């Protein structure tokens, strides 16, 4: 026999109180999780600031200034679509920095929350749902990606690496590039029961080769045709190409720019939806 207490409880109050207690968490839960994650990030703030400022300075100087003298004097600026090597390589540096951060934030921290220091289970024992936890983590990483990319962009301006007026649009593109790979990685980390070096493997044989062969430091056309697929599947290539269009008006067909955006958005959404579902499954033991 089931409990017949529902109507009585409604009058008495406790049930009513519970229904009320669920309103705010259901509505704002994702933001509460994001708030907690950003608070956690604060303990790494110094490291984040150091890398956030150090990375653009070091890379822009080393490649955009140092290596560029060699490239520009040997090739002439014609080889890179009529711009200096600095202008050519800067959008790629911006996007790969976003990719690196997304890889970092969507791998170990997810495993941490589900396994090593299972705070996600604690959130779920409070009113938070699996979907809200994934949302909150995502929001907090977006905040970091936007901040990092903005800082990067400012340094690009300082180095004189952004000739066009639409260059600032590279910030959302860098964000999208990071999210495209990051969301997929988040889904994988949500599913992964134990890390036996998989993340390390993904980093070494996935992210680093992508960084090198996605038309980043040299155009994809330099590679033999049979290696072009690397670019086509790489979110980084799509992000970098789009960024070049925005930075210095790199010429490509409009439909291709459309493909870039679609591909990046698609990966992001698929990874995010998957991660939400997997999180619910994993939390519901």
């Amino acid at each position: 026999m089931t409990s017949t207490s529902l109507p009585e409880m409604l009058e008495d109050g406790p049930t009513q109180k519970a229904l009320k207690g669920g309103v705010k968490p259901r509505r704002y839960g994702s933001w509460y999780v994001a708030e907690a994650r950003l608070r956690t990030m604060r303990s790494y703030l110094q490291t984040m600031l150091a890398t956030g400022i150090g990375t653009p300075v070091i890379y822009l100087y080393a490649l955009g200034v140092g290596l560029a003298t060699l490239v520009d004097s040997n090739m002439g600026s014609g080889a890179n679509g009529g711009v200096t090597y600095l202008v050519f390589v800067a959008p790629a540096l911006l996007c790969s920095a976003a990719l690196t951060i997304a890889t970092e934030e969507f791998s170990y921290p997810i495993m941490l929350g589900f396994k090593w220091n299972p705070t996600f289970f604690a959130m779920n024992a409070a009113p938070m749902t699996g979907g809200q936890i994934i949302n909150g983590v995502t929001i907090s990483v977006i905040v970091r990606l936007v901040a990092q990319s903005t800082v990067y962009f400012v340094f690009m301006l300082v180095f004189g690496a952004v000739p066009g007026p639409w260059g600032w649009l590279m910030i959302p593109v860098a964000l999208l590039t990071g999210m495209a790979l990051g969301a997929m990685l988040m889904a994988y980390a949500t599913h992964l029961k134990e890390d036996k070096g998989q993340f390390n493997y993904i980093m070494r044989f996935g992210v680093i080769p992508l960084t090198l062969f996605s038309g980043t430091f040299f155009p994809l056309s330099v590679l033999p045709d049979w290696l072009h697929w690397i670019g086509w599947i790489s979110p980084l290539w799509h992000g970098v190409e789009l960024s070049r269009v925005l930075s210095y008006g790199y010429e490509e067909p409009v439909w291709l720019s459309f493909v870039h955006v679609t591909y990046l958005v698609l990966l992001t959404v698929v990874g995010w939806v998957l991660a939400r579902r997997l999180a619910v499954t994993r939390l519901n033991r």
Partner: protein
Amino acid sequence: MPAPDASHSSAPDSVISARNLTKKYKDFVAVDGISFDIAPGESFGFLGPNGAGKSTTMRMIGAVSARTSGDLSVIGLDPDQYGPEIRSQLGVVPQEDNLDSELRVRENLIVYGRYFGLPHSYLGPKADELLEFAQLTEKAKARVDDLSGGMKRRLTIARALINNPRIMMLDEPTTWLDPQARHILWDRLFRLKEQGTTLVLTTHYMDEAEQLCDRLVVIDKGTIMAEGAPSALIKQYSTREVLELRFGSDRNADAALKLEGVADRIEVLPDRVLVYSDNGDAALQRAHDLGLKPITSLVRRSSLEDVFLRLTGRSLIE
């Protein structure tokens, strides 16, 4: 021996009510059709060995694990549909600590309170009050990893209280703690009970169950073996006293045979013989009269351990 009796019919004022509650993982039945009611303000325990289905039951009540079949109502709501609503009224102390080790002690309370949608203006003073309650005021700024096991548990309990829960859910609250830390914890839980908080706890320690539970169910292999107040269960399933005799491991069984008829019931464990009798001293005298010479003898009150042994033929802690 599941015996549906008067208490198993509808209980309109119960805060938690389960009927034939079942949880299966593929072929494994973790919880096998259990029924129980918990009244508001009651302190209710699930006593059983590891793997009996206690934690699974707790997770189902806690609205974080969907049941396979049966009915479950928590604060008048179905956990399958009203998870966040139910969880907004619970304070959960899980078996394994899941404090955020990237946050400081006090921050752990504040951040957790936010998940309930509570404002910072409320959480600040509340966190200080709970730190006081948990005797952790001096540790407010400490790192979680620097706390002792007992302190971590107290912080977890403080965290569970941040939303003024109607129901406290405690899964093996004092496992791994040293005796002193356990007593501090029991004291804190007892205060909560005095304040009218409903306590639901699992344990495989009979002394803990006796200390904290008004009523409990003995659970084994996913089913309820018995239900009642600790003292009533002892009265029903055991004698008032128990005589423990040790003859040496290879002679216990022989001695037990000779003791037949001396007492109501004899249990032979690997290391000792338990003689169940309302008068332990008299039983010991009779054993001596029979010419038995135990190496050691001890007369004690019956405990829930004896109830469990009687019901399942096994010890609680194996």
